[in-house]
Structure formats: C-alpha cells, structure tokens
C-alpha cells in the first residue's frame, strides 16, 4: 500500500480500541522509543519545531540581524497587494495544472504501450526512466537552457526545415512552456508506477470481457482505467505536491531571476528571493505557510474528489 493508501484507510477505520489492543499497544514502549529516538528528535527539531517557528515568524518582521518584531497580519496583508506574488502564483498554477496532467498522460500512454510482454521492455523502460533521474539536476537545466536558447538545438533543427524559431527561453510567452516540457520529459517515474499497477490487474477481467466481445477501447474504459484509478490518484497527489515545490529548473534556466519579465518566477523562486536574497524572513515565512495551505487544499480536494472517481477493489 502506498503512503496515501495508508493514510486514507487510517482515516476510514476508526473504532474504539479493545482492552487487549490497548495492552498490546504499550507492550514494547521502551524498546520502541529507543528505536524511534532519532526520528523523534528529527520530528521535533527539524520538522515540527521549525514549522511552528515559521508560523510565528510569519507574524513578524525579521531580517536575521534584529530580533523579530511582531507585526500581526501585516505580512499577509502585504501578500494580498503584492503583484509579483500574484504573478508567481499564476506561473506556478499554470506549471502545475498543465505540467502534471500532461506528464501523467504521457506516462500512462507509454505504460500502456509498454505493458504485456513486449519485446525489449527492460530496454525501453530504462530509456524512459533515465530522464526522471537526471531531470532534477542543474546539469540538465543547463542543457535545457541551451536547447531552448535562440541558437539552441531546437532552433537548429527547426532551421533545417526552414523555420526560424523564437528564443524559447528568452521570450516571456514560451519560457514557461519550455520548463513545463522539462517536467513532462521526466515522466519515467510515474510510468514505472503505472506499469507496476497494470500488472496488478487480474487477467481474468480481460478474459471475461473478451468472452463478452468487448473492444479494446471498452476494455480500457471499463477495466484498465477503473482498476488503475488508485494509482492514477497516487501519482496525481504526489506530482501535484512535488510540482508546487519545483525550483531548480526555473532557477537555472532563468539565471536565478525568474525572467524574462517574471514569466518563470515560480512561487518558490520568489520565496527564495524574499527570504535569502532580501532576508525578509517574516514575509518568506508567511509565503511558506501560504504554500503549505495551497498544497494542503489541493491535496484535500484531491482526496474528496477521489471518492467519486477512484475505485478500490477491496
């Protein structure tokens, strides 16, 4: 079961514990807390502590040098009127709402083509998977910067057929598209998850459908898609959470400034500039919490919507 599957079953199964269960629950307390010690310290010092601290800081004005000064809701009010922040939200939403479905669609199509004992499957799988390992690196972002540059690979190829391409990453209209393409390029890891999911679908369903004379398309809509829906859901949740936090590619491709004219200014990039460029730590904290709320809301919507389209076969 995936992390998401576990979480949703945990929330579904709620009942009072029996006495025996309670007793068994405490049986290994001492040993358990010893084994959990590093994790517990990490949870307190690296995760929960800083989270609460950043919540506090989001209500302050803080530049690292002077002690934080309480300003109430000032940072949030500022966010409300910050046009660059609104733009960064627009950029990030575009990236997530276009990039994630596109990437998953490609991953699903390729996984479907790859499934069912195709010859050379391990080879193809490796080829498709490799980019998702490299895609997060600075090196590939550098490559992208060249490929989609004015005299880059893409325009060189286009020139061969007589088309003069724009400077993809220097044109505000196409810069974000180039970065979305980089995201789609890394479809390998959701594809692997889809492949594993496809193998879990019992072949008897298909056999029964064939007996009933179902077409390939019908089998896809009636069997494959519903049976795969928990995995599509899993990929969707994870990719959305991950994409909201994209940073490296936009940072490198734009040279750190989110240009041209803020067209690749991701929310995280703006947060970085505020926090670690201008040391406006209070504002950056407010932004971070805002991001958490956005991601949380998206995830919650996903979970609620999943009741209507995700099919659990148990």
């Amino acid at each position, binding site marked *: 079961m*995936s*992390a998401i599957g*576990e*979480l949703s079953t*945990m929330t579904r199964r709620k009942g009072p514990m029996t006495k025996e269960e309670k007793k068994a*629950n*405490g*049986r*290994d*307390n001492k*040993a358990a*807390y010893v*084994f959990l010690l*590093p*994790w517990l310290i*990490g*949870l307190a*010092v*690296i*995760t929960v*502590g*800083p989270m609460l*601290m950043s919540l506090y*800081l989001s209500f302050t004005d803080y530049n*690292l040098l002077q002690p934080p000064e309480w300003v109430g809701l000032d940072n949030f009010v500022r966010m409300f009127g910050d046009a660059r922040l609104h733009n960064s939200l627009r950029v990030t939403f575009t990236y997530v709402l276009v990039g994630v479905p596109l990437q998953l669609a490609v991953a699903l199509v390729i996984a479907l083509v790859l499934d069912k*004992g*195709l*010859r050379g499957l391990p080879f*193809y*799988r490796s*080829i498709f998977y490799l*980019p998702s390992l*490299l895609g*997060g690196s*600075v*090196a590939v972002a*550098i490559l992208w*910067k060249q*490929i989609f*540059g004015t*005299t*880059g*690979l893409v325009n060189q190829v286009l020139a061969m057929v007589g088309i003069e391409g724009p400077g993809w990453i220097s044109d505000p209209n196409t810069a974000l598209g180039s970065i979305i393409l980089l995201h789609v390029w890394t479809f390998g890891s959701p594809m*692997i*998850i889809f492949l594993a999911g496809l*193998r879990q679908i019992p*072949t008897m369903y298909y056999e029964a459908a064939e007996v009933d004379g179902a077409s390939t398309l019908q089998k896809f809509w009636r069997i494959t898609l519903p049976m795969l829906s928990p*995995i599509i859901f*899993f*990929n969707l949740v994870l990719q959305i*959470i991950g994409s909201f936090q994209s*940073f*490296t590619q936009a*940072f490198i491709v734009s*040279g750190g400034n989110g240009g041209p004219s803020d067209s690749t200014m991701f929310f995280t990039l703006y*947060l*970085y500039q505020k926090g670690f460029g201008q040391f406006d730590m209070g504002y*950056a904290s407010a932004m971070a919490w805002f*991001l*958490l709320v956005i991601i949380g809301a998206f995830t919650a919507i996903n979970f609620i919507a999943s009741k209507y389209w995700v099919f659990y076969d148990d």
Partner: protein
Amino acid sequence: MTKLQTLPASSSSDRKAGKAGKSPRRRESRGSLAFSRSARIKGLIKHAILIIVGGVMIYPLLWMVVSSLRPNDLIFREPGLWLENLEMSNYTDGWSALTHPFGHYMINSAIVVLGSILGNLISCSMAAYAFARLQFSGKKIFFGIMLLTIMLPFHVVIVPQYILFSQIGWVNTFWPLIVPKLLATDAFFVFLMVQFIRGIPKDLDEAARIDGAGHPRIFLRVILPLMVPALATTTIFTFIWTWNDFFGALIYLTDPDMFTVPVALRAFVDSQSATSWGSLFAMSIVSLLPVFLVFLFGQRFLIKGIATTGIK
C-alpha cells in the same frame, strides 16, 4: 540470489505471471493467421512509437555528450551527432574553470552523499523497525504523522532551519545537509522500509525471541540482513537525490570552498558568458556521470523501490 527469494512476493510473482501469460498467446497466434498478422502489425506500431518517443527523449542527452567533444562554435550550428575528431579541451578547460578544480566539488558532494546515505540507512531502518514490528502507545498517531511528513513541503521549515543552523555556526559546513538525514527526516525511506519489513515473515522474529534475543538482536541479526534490498534502494535513491540536491546547497553553502557539484555548476553558468558552452557541457556531463553509473548498476532496486511504494 537465495536472499531474493525471501522478498515480499510481488516482484517474483510478477515475473512469473508475465511468462505464464506469454505462452498461451503464442499458441493462439499459431492457430489463426489473421490474428497473428494483425498482432504483428500492432507490435510493429508499438515499437515504432516507443523508438520515436525514446529517441526524442534521449537525443538531447546524446547531443550534449557529443557537443562536449566539439569545438565551441559548433554547438550553435551542429544539431547532428557525428563527430569528426575528439576535442578534449572542453573537459580540461572546464575542470579548472572555477576557483578549485572540479574534482574538489565532487569530493565535497561525495562527503555529503556518503553522510546522507549512512544517516538514512541507520535512522530510517531503526524507525521502520519500530513502526513495523513493535507495539507501543501512540503508534498510530506517530505513524500518521510520519506519513504526513512525506508530503510536507520543504519550504515551510527552511527559514527557521536556516536560522537554527546559522546560529550554531553550521552555515558553510556540510552538517545542515547531513544531520537531518541522521534524524530520519527523509520519511519516504522510513515508509519504504516499513513496507519491506511487513513482508518479512514474523515467524523469524518469534523464533529469535524464543531463543532469548531482545529487540536490538532481532533487528540487527534477523531483520537487517533480510532487508538488504530495501537498504540498497534507499542507498541508491539517497545517492541520486543528494547528488542532485541544489536548494539545500544553495542556501547553506555560499563559500566556494564548500560548494557541492550543483552549486559549483550554477556558479559556472553565472560566471561564463555564452562563449564557453563546451566546457559547461563537459562539466555537466562529469556531474551526471555518477548518477548515470548508479542508474546503470542499481536500476533493478530503483524500479522495484518505486513500484512497491507506489502501488495502491
């Protein structure tokens, strides 16, 4: 090989199912000619799609490798992959283009990577053992919190973390990048290992317990040796993610002496104008090489790791 047989069944049974599925189909195709022809055409179309998509995807990488072996000006007018002669100067130039030779940054990266791997292996396996095998109060809540932290965006904690680490004087040291791993903050791996341990038969623990072994002994002597595949997956993923990690290094490492490979590359991009793409490409390839090698030799674990944590 014998160890692999004790794995949770999923992967080996998958393989079996694949083989079993093949033979009847072959028999069927011999039976009807029309079917076999359309199946063959279908297969050809599939291969054509895959080769085209795969080719387009890999082409930029191949082109980067080839271009790094070309004189600089060709990078802007040679989209092909043929090489007339090998130009190694990009590599020698790139290697010494920054304050330190590029190897210096690779060693820095290697230190962070090794520390992170060690940290993740120890701390995550301990936590996973507790979650998978021990009964303690608050287990459900802690487990839920652990799952939630997998999805927690890093940015929510980065500002206070930075303040914390800068106050204890850890900025421009590798500690901020390594210590969190020693504290099992990569919850993804805790979860991966919990999944794996759940697949190990409980009889083995019981037998050890009857022989008088305590939890530390069971963990070290029974569970740990059996979870080598999960540890391998963790090692490989930690390697790749840490090697590629840019954000953490960007924030904590500002002194060129301490640069890891990604921040060094970034400094390289910033310092050069568009004239030295060749050496920039060359060092990019050097930086990707370790990831590529790990991918080549560790693929099996990577794919199994993603597939088993991803299902349902």
